[in-house]
């Protein structure tokens, strides 16, 4: 479905990603983990078109994504839930969701999507007329995920949905993400909360300082020494 091949990105001469490759198949739940500054958000921004790569290719459902503008990519079925939520603060919760449904696919499925979003996050129905900027961090994250779902996306990309949230709220968010995937949406997740994230996924990648250092199914990653030591804090005994 999504095929990233040998992607390299630099910010003003500074390498952020070097020859990164990644594959997401239809219906999969794929997670990219790695420490701060590894280039995880850069990878997402390049896929959604806000950052231009130096080299490499990205194809989505057979189309060359790099030939399309950033806005156009959303119309092709990619929903990006950005790091730090980035809700439209001065718009109401409902208007935020409506903007998620800006692409044609979203408009066609609007009634169904809204139902689904409200089932996942009932609080958003309650707060429909409230300005999104006045919500708590957890609620804003729900708006951001709901907004991503509203476009009825083929691929949902989530960039650190747990960032800055209380552990109980994070649990809820992860639970909902898992439910979204069960409902049939392909998910690409970037997370620093490695254990929880990998547990949800079919396939995982480890990104360190711009290089993909490891990949594999959940079991392989969890059995890997480096992952166990560096990310899960487990030691051999």
């Amino acid at each position, binding site marked *: 479905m999504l095929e990233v091949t040998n992607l390299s990105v630099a910010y003003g001469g500074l390498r952020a990603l070097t020859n990164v490759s990644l594959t997401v198949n239809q219906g999969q739940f794929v997670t990219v983990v790695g420490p701060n500054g590894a280039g995880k958000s850069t990878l997402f921004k390049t896929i959604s078109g806000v950052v231009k790569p130096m080299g490499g290719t990205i194809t989505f459902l057979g189309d060359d994504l790099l030939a399309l503008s950033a806005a156009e990519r*959303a119309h092709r079925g990619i929903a990006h839930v950005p790091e730090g939520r980035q809700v*439209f603060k001065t*718009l109401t919760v409902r208007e935020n969701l409506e903007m998620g449904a800006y692409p044609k696919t979203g408009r066609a499925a609007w009634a169904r999507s809204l139902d689904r979003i409200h089932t996942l996050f009932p609080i958003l129905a309650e707060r429909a007329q409230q300005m999104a900027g006045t919500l708590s961090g957890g609620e804003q994250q729900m708006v951001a995920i709901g907004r991503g779902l509203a476009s009825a996306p083929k691929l949902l990309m989530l960039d650190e949905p747990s960032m800055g949230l209380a552990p109980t709220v994070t649990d809820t968010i992860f639970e909902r993400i898992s439910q979204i995937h069960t409902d049939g949406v392909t998910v690409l997740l970037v997370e620093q909360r490695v254990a929880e994230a990998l547990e949800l996924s079919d396939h995982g990648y480890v990104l360190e300082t711009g290089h993909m250092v490891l990949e594999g199914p959940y079991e392989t990653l969890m059995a890997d020494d480096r992952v166990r030591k560096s990310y899960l804090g487990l030691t051999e005994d």
Partner: protein
Amino acid sequence: MDIEVLIESVLNAVTAGITIGCIYGLMCIGLGMIFGIMKVVNFAQGELLMLGMFASFYLVTGGGILAFLGPYIGPFVGAMLAGPIVFLAGAFLHKFLISRVSGLRTAGSIDDGHFGQLIITLGISLILQNGGMIVFGSVPVTVQTPLSSSAFLLGPIYDDATVFLNKAKLVACAVAIITALALYFTMEFTRIGKALRAAADNPVAATYMGIDVDKYYRMAFGLGSGITAIAGGLMATYLSFGSFIGFDYVIIMYSGVVLGGIGSIMGAFWGGLTVGFVQQVSALVLPPQLQNAAIFVAFLMIVLLRPQGLFGRSAERA
């Protein structure tokens, strides 16, 4: 002073304040779109007003294409048509100049592009003022309509105290209110209006939603230009103007927008209305040279009590 004369002059100042205030309100909405909502500092807004006046002037008078409509309807149709004409001018300015210092290109930069906008729009303003003098000449002109020298009489209300409602200003006021409401409903309830607000609120996130941010910024800049131009076309029916008139109004527009509350269309309208009202009513007690000073005294007092403006809301969680 005779009580009767006093009542008459107060009532007339109040009605003039409201009618002129509505036109100022529309003028401020134009800047409210560009500065309040899209957060682009535009010092050329006064010149867009001036372009609106001249667009209407050339359409209506001196054998213009609207001359056949006659002096009663022509000037107001001319004012309305100044809107789309200056919309195109604004969109053009945005495409080639303003877009380089605003929107996605400067999102997240230290000043959000404001320094660049300040210099570019000041430059555009100077070019349009002086270029306007070359093209339009230095003799002040006006769009004449017999309506501006006739009035509806209300009263006598108290003894012989009568309120004179200038017909030209009354029609202009009605056109201003209708245009303002149309824009308000467009911004508040249509998909385009919401996308525009989303693009202004967070250009990067808007791109993730599939919103073509550059296109919407261009449209917003054009709309803001066109709305102010319509107000200019309306004002052209009751005042004489030259290419330097914009300077007198750009400050009024900024105070109206800030007074009403940044980021609110209706706020900008009420802000403009307040400014027009204060300006006209202060004429009762102050000489004309001090009318603009009165505006700023009122402005400072309101901002002292309500720093967020009359209709400003804070969207950030406290």
